[in-house]
């Protein structure tokens, strides 16, 4: 009788529990940044989506850049900005959401002691490689530094 109860309880428990998913299957490896492009010393300024291109992006900044953007001021000296653009993919865990997929590009904008001296680099491909064609760089810089910080109370 006792054994029977234990067995049936175990059967019910097993039926209601799924085996835990392996952590490596949970991490979004494809969207992860290669170590050489780490932004772990930076913070989020804003994020955006392009519905037509089905991409999503996040703009990160160093402390100077974040403080400047969150107070609505213009570009300062010593800023580092990184814009990561991902292809989107449907979220397997939520019908109704898209999440980052493969990295499309990483752009880096920086200012030196003189905030008008702006450096810009763009990386694309897998593995990410520096894009040597400088056409359109100016527009990209303007577009990146114009991004307004997201409201974070």
């Amino acid at each position: 009788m006792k054994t029977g109860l234990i067995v049936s309880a175990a059967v019910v428990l097993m039926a209601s529990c799924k085996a835990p998913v392996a952590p490596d299957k949970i991490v979004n490896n494809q969207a992860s940044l290669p170590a050489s492009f780490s932004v772990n010393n930076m913070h989020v300024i804003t994020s955006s989506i392009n519905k037509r291109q089905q991409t999503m992006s996040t703009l990160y900044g160093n402390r100077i850049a974040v403080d400047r953007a969150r107070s609505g001021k213009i570009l300062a000296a010593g800023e580092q900005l990184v814009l990561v653009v991902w292809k989107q993919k449907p979220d397997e865990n939520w019908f109704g959401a898209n999440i980052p997929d493969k990295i499309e590009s990483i752009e880096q904008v920086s200012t030196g002691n003189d905030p008008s001296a702006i450096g810009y680099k763009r990386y694309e491909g897998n593995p990410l490689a520096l894009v040597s064609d400088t056409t359109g760089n100016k527009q990209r810089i303007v577009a990146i530094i114009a991004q307004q910080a997201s409201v974070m109370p």
Partner: protein
Amino acid sequence: MKKRKTFRDILAALLVIFIALQFVRPSIPQQPVTSDIQAPPEVKAILRRACYDCHSNETKLRWFDQISPASWRVAEHIKSGRAVLNFSEWDKIAAPDRAGKLWESVNQAIAGAMPLKDYETIHREAHITEKDLIILKDYLNATVKDHPGDTAKQNAAKQQYQNWIDGKMNSAQLPKTLNGITYMPDYKNWQAISTTDRFDNGTMRVIFGNDIAVKAVHDGKINPWPDGTIFAKVAWDQLENKDGNVTTGAFKQIEYMIKDSRKYADTHGWGFARFKTPQLIPYGKTATFTSECVGCHKPVADRDFVFTSPLKN
């Protein structure tokens, strides 16, 4: 001989108990249909077949549902089912939340969390097939509309942004939820572990993780997440321009998940909190609001109740 007699006695006693049990019936309240959900017939047919027994006032009890002790479990299902979602009292759900309830319901069905397995085993007709899911998904997808150049949303965002950079949003006292979680303003200096484009409700989100969460991602120790992990998920309106570019609009809400397997043992080790609007109004009318959080997170129980697939920064 004696053994056989004892066995017969036990059987007889069990039978008496079983018969007696039939006189102790749980009550299932009969409630009127005040406003039934409006949906295309093919969608309605699935909802009726798979959900209505527990999520409407049109419960159809079969003979086997009425035999005690099973009837008690049936009554419990109906009671809790109606409390969470009742298609017969659709007008009692605030209009903006109705679509959210439907998306959540379909997600529960996709994840196999609904209908409940023990109910479905006995009520085979309630099973939601792959074909049913396609019908439900198509219906919901058709409700998604882009609104480029929404001036109301633009104005709301503009005003909020101005208030924020002018420092007008800083409240003297940090709000606290009924389950004792205080707003943590420092989330904005944590690492982003993912972003989501929630086209189901026209918002976009950044999910931040504290140092413990970020380290856990790097160490691959995220199922279960370690105690001390905190997530902050911030949602904004999607502001779309004519070229399909979407930027963050008005701040909608922030949600926290705090891992403390002892303190929050009742909610699978997670403390849940939500603060809405720039006024940061704590969500939940009573401390039991967290049962709503747990209910929604149940389909990802095999991922320690966390939906987010974190990326390494």
